[in-house]
């Protein structure tokens, strides 16, 4: 519409051709201010000022102000008085109306007596007989011209005033409409900007005339899904505000902390604050993140409740679970702004910040995965309707994370155990090696064409974890294999060690089927290595290290006496009996050799042939220059 079209709304006020005659003005001044002597410029100015400042309602306000000061009893008193006055006025009005009615009735009773009688008061009926009053039309005397012109002028003035008022109103509403249009335009532009960013804009289901933006997650639990919709409201100046209803507008986030030995050693990073916090876009983003975080925490608590048997505890706003003996993970929901206050409080080191961050990302990825699973479940043909409601199982958020942490801590422990033993044996000159395959169960290349790649990737981490350790033992043909399995989704819960050993020398020695405790596993493993060392000592004779044939012949032959306590016996050709005790722990290998005595007691032992108890210990750090175990054995084997 072109804005060139304009319509004069105000009435054109004509300048009066002929000014008022002076005598009239003088008469008016005399009537208004009295004698001309009193009218000075100053008094007139003062009057104009006073008129300007005076408010038409000033009188009433003044009396109101006065009444404010009065105390309550007076006010109550005044209230009653005023009420009485109102009543009085009403009565008076009523009475006057009744008089008027009586009068008209009496007048009419001449012509229609029956009807008029009905509206007459009883008193009037008694006092005046019906039809005693008559009326006649009299022609009024003609009004003087001056009166006619007066009336004309007054009505003209009234009309002018009304036109003016109407014009003002129209112009006002035009203004109002204009501002309304600009603000509407602003609003809709912002709505369009929101829509162009890719947000879903729709009508609110419960409030059909309002617009809303959907930022939530369709696959979330219903309460959180429904919270993912907020109204886009317009303020008076047309800017857009995001109305989330009763939900507090605070941004909240799930914080992950790692506690080692009752000291916080790691805390996940806060979300970086948006640089433009006031824009609608960032508000929507913040609302979306908050609803995601709250759902995440809700699901964490829900899952934590069923994991009570596995050491997970919940407080009002805290979920914590143990990783190892001295480490635990704490998850809580904090306000974003509060996070900055608490960030440095109680955090003694940033050693595990990476772990905490990884956990924080991990649980979020897992929730997204759970959402995808929900979509999958929702779009499958449903099972037939049964009276029992299907309930959604708890999402796997904590469990994979716990399993991973537990598993990796167990695997690291086992690896360190093996490394220690390896080190001890190495210092004793025995080569013993193992290969560790941590997380051998994860195969990220496993192809599954039915599922999208992202889902297959996450799916891998929901399966039980398994790591394998394998290696050859010292004795030929002996080997061992340890499988570490961690499963927190289905029983048996926790981490288990499956040890299988192939030892041809001890075919009937079998490790326990499934070992759950670290100490036990360590004990079993060292025991097998010990048995293996014993075997290699007994076999050492058959494969001499570097001795000549004569030397070999003079050596004692060691036989295992009590393999499970690490004892060997050797019987020399002279009948002297030697006992060797081998003990192995993760820190050291000790070999002690005693002379037990002669079996043939008749022959006194030569002094030089009774060696004192000899012992040799190989430590973890491997003192250089120590002889090897085999050398030691070879030495003590000499007769």
């Amino acid at each position, binding site marked *: 519409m072109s804005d060139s079209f304009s319509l004069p709304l105000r009435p054109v006020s004509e300048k009066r051709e002929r000014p008022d005659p002076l005598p009239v003005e003088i008469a008016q001044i005399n009537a208004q201010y009295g004698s001309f002597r009193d009218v000075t410029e100053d008094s007139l100015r003062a009057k104009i000022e006073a008129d300007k400042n005076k408010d038409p309602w000033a009188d009433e306000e003044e009396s109101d102000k006065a009444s404010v000061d009065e105390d309550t009893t007076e006010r109550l008193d005044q209230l009653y008085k005023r009420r009485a006055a109102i009543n009085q006025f009403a009565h008076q009005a009523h009475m006057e109306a009744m008089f008027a009615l009586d009068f008209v009735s009496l007048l009419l009773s001449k012509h229609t007596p029956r009807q008029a009688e009905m509206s007459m008061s009883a008193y009037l009926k008694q006092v005046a007989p019906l039809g005693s009053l008559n009326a006649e039309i009299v022609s009024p005397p003609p009004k003087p011209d001056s009166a006619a012109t007066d009336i004309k002028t007054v009505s003209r003035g009234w009309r002018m005033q009304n036109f003016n008022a109407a014009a003002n109103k129209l112009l006002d509403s035009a203004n109002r409409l204009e501002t309304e249009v600009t603000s509407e335009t602003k609003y809709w532009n912002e709505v369009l900007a929101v829509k162009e960013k890719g947000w879903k804009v729709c009508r609110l289901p419960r409030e059909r005339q309002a617009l809303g933006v959907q930022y939530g997650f*369709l696959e979330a639990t219903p309460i959180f899904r429904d919270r993912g919709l907020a109204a886009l409201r317009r303020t008076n100046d047309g800017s857009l505000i995001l109305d989330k209803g009763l939900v507090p507008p605070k941004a909240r986030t799930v914080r992950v902390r790692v506690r080692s030995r009752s000291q916080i050693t790691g805390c996940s990073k806060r979300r970086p604050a948006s640089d433009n916090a006031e824009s609608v876009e960032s508000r929507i983003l913040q609302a979306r993140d908050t609803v995601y975080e709250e759902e995440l925490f809700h699901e964490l608590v829900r899952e934590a409740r069923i994991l009570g048997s596995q050491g997970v505890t919940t407080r009002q706003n805290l979920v914590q679970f143990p990783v190892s003996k001295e480490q635990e993970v704490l998850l809580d929901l904090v306000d974003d702004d509060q996070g900055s206050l608490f960030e440095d409080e109680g955090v003694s080191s940033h050693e595990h910040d990476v772990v905490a961050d990884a956990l924080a990302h991990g649980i979020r990825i897992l929730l997204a995965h759970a959402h995808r699973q929900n*979509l999958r479940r*929702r*779009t*499958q*043909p*449903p099972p*037939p*309707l*049964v*009276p029992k409601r299907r309930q959604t199982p708890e999402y796997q958020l904590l469990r994979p994370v716990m399993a991973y942490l537990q598993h990796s801590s167990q695997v690291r422990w086992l690896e360190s155990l093996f490394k220690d033993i390896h080190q001890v044996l190495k210092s004793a000159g025995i080569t013993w090696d193992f290969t560790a395959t941590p997380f051998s169960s994860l195969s990220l290349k496993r192809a599954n064409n039915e599922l999208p790649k992202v889902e297959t990737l996450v799916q891998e981490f929901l399966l039980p974890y398994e790591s394998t350790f394998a290696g050859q033992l010292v004795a030929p043909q002996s080997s061992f294999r340890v499988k570490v399995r961690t499963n927190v989704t289905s029983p048996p819960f926790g981490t288990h060690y499956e040890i299988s050993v192939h030892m041809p020398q001890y075919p009937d020695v079998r490790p326990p089927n499934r070992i759950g405790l670290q100490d036990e596993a360590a004990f079993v493993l060292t025991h097998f290595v010990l048995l293996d060392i014993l075997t290699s000592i007994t076999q050492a004779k058959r494969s001499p290290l570097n001795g000549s044939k004569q030397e070999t012949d003079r050596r004692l032959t060691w036989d295992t006496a009590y393999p499970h306590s690490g004892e060997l016996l050797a019987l020399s050709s002279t009948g002297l009996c030697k006992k060797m005790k081998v003990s192995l722990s993760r820190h050291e290998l000790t070999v002690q050799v005693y002379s037990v005595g002669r079996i043939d007691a008749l022959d006194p032992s030569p002094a030089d042939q009774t060696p004192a108890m000899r012992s040799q210990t190989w430590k973890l750090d491997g003192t250089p220059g120590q002889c090897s175990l085999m050398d030691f054995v070879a030495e003590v084997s000499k007769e």
Partner: protein
Amino acid sequence: MHELLLFASVPAHQHHELLQQLAGLTAMQPCHRLERRLIFKAYRKPGLINTRVGASQDLQGNEMQRLNKMLNGGMFYTQVVGSLSEADFGAQSSAVPSGDPDAPMSGIVPGEKNETHSYTYENQPWKLEFRDIPEAGTRSAVTTRLMASASLPKGDIMTPMNAWGYSFVTEYVVEGDIFILNDIVIFLHRVLHYPTESPESHGPRRQLPSFQQMSPLERTGSYILQASITVQDGGNQEMMKTASQHLFGLREQLKSAVRLEQADRLSLDTRAK
């Protein structure tokens, strides 16, 4: 199991729009479905003696009673459904044609097309679907019928079906899209006919013609919208009521787009006379 149904006819020009609307309503992408459906008719095998007709003083055992009921009960048409993919149409049969002169098409070197895609009749999975005639005299405005489904062995279905006393009648293809809304399965589909061949075959086709050759049963190309809910226990009145309420809810939601209504009972008659 019982099945509650509502139907609507969707003209071809509305099809695309309705797909969009349904996708919005159910918040999911349409799941395209192609199914070949074989119709089988039950028949009484000749030579079957109806034991103990008339007054027998013997008390029939439970088992016997059930067997008799099964043998002498009503005869029904049943459907065998096999799902297909678009690529199955017009694909060369990979099965070695044995004594079937129609199978190899002239001009095509065997094995050349096999690399792209092949339709193997022997690997076609099947599902048996039984539908009873809709219940009569129900006052609610939904079609209710007894139903049962069972999966069948893959491949040649004629032999087992014949052994169970069913003879092949005809086959057709159903093409459409499925949406899921809570418990309701919404199937927007149409029936396609195979191109008429001169020799009337007496068994399911071992290979499929190209998809373009398929002609819709309804010449105008209109679709059928079928909304269904299955209920595990048809005797549970409360469940049936909930299910029909769900359907009515859907009917209200789709009111401005299509009119969902009950189907004519006799047109869904599956009894074999």
